[in-house]
């Protein structure tokens, strides 16, 4: 599903990733961990296609991101859900509208958009807050809206960047349970996190990054 070959990424003089070789199978659940600045976010952004590698190859579902056209990248992103560290919710839109956006841009039918958005919000336990605006929600609720938006289009791959960064232990557990449920439906899940409690006892594959290199795989 995701294949990375000799991947390097520089930001000027700073090397963010060096010689990353990784293969994530369809339906796998993978944690990417490491200290701040290890390159976790950069790795996810490269897989998502919002950054281009300095060198190396990225294959998503057998499509080479180095050779993909702009419009095909847009189409590929419809199959990939991304949960951003800073949520990236639109404050002037309601919870419902934020989640529905993912389907509206694909041009789905209104009735289908409504049905799927309700389903998705029920899954993250936010059905009763669908008319609320993001800024009136707690950090954990905003995170769940971001997750609902990422999963509403039934993505093949779900990427999550520090999804529990600002949450307490109970909420972290809830979010992890949510990811596990999504994974059990067949979605490939890649979660970048530095919170040990999330991956330590999970029994899932964990990749440890340090200074842009894979130093350990569990």
């Amino acid at each position, binding site marked *: 599903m995701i294949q990375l070959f000799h991947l390097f990424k520089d930001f000027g003089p700073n090397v963010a990733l060096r010689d990353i070789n990784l293969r994530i199978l369809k339906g796998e659940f993978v944690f990417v961990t490491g200290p701040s600045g290890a390159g976790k976010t950069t790795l996810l952004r490269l897989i998502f296609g919002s950054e281009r590698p300095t060198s190396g190859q990225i294959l998503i579902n057998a499509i080479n991101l180095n050779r993909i056209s702009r*419009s095909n990248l847009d*189409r590929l992103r419809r199959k990939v859900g991304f949960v951003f560290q800073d949520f990236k919710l639109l404050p002037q839109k309601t919870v419902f509208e934020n989640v529905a956006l993912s389907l509206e*841009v694909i*041009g789905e*039918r209104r009735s289908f958009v409504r049905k799927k958005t309700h389903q998705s919000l029920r899954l993250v336990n936010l059905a009763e807050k669908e008319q609320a605006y993001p800024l009136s929600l707690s950090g954990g609720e905003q995170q769940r809206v971001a997750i609902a938006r990422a999963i509403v289009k039934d993505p093949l791959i779900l990427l999550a960047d520090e999804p529990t960064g600002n949450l307490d232990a109970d909420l972290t557990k809830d979010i992890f349970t949510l990811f596990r449920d999504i994974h059990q439906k067949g979605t490939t899940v890649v979660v970048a996190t530095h919170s040990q409690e999330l991956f330590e006892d999970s029994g899932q594959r964990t990749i440890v990054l340090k200074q842009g290199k894979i130093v350990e795989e569990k």
Partner: protein
Amino acid sequence: MKLRRWSYFLRQALMNIMNNRLVHVIGLGTMLVSILLFGTYLLLFINLNAWVQGWGHSLSMSVYLEEGISEAKRDMIASWIKSLPAAEIERLITKEEALKELRRVLGDQAGLLEGLSANPLPASLQVVFEKGEGQRIDPERIKKELEMLEGVEEVQYSEDWLKQFKGLMRLIRVAGVIIGGFLCMGILFIVTNTIKLTIYSRKEEIEILKLVGATDWFVKMPFLLEGTIQGMVSGILALFILFAGYYLLSTEKIHFANLGVFDLVFFPHGYMLLILLASVALGLVGSLIAVRRFFDI
């Protein structure tokens, strides 16, 4: 493209306009003033042109007769004139009537004529060419043919005046094209900047739309619609205001340079459509420029 997409684009465009009301009101107002300026100019041109054309069609001509012309010859000239298409002899001015008229025109100075031993003024036929005959009158050709007839001394019509006016009309037309060109550039500048501001105000949303898989055109389309709507509304408002102005003025009879009643005309349908299409096109092109220049995601 599917209908529901267009309804989404339209909703987004209207929402953009509502969220950036002030910018749009200023942009629309400036665009409206520009179209009004050009429209007023065009309307003046059309009216002057119609008036000059009309004047050319209702041409009057004075055919001066030779001294001591026989009645038979005079009748022959008269019947020759009557055979011309659209021509009508308004009246015959005899030598005596001509002198009487001159006396009237001179008024207090009529004493000057007392010293004359004989009446030097020729008799003349006043000919009018009626308008609406659907054919162009060539006064120069008629003048030449008439002057060749026996008994005709001279033929006069206000040819120079007409020629000068037609020259002026050409000048007005060229000036109109130049003014129109500058106004179009101004309008493009206004629309581009209005759309640029709305793009900036939605930068965050555009980024998120791209991240959830929207194509470039999906994100750009509402902005293009925004410019098109701005152009269309400005065009319609400008035509409405111009028509209101025309309606108010046309109820009054306008006199122009002591040359008679000046009947106002409004744009023909083709011109109205052209103004509307040009406004829409300017709005669309302006927003296309903005989208191409300021869309960097």
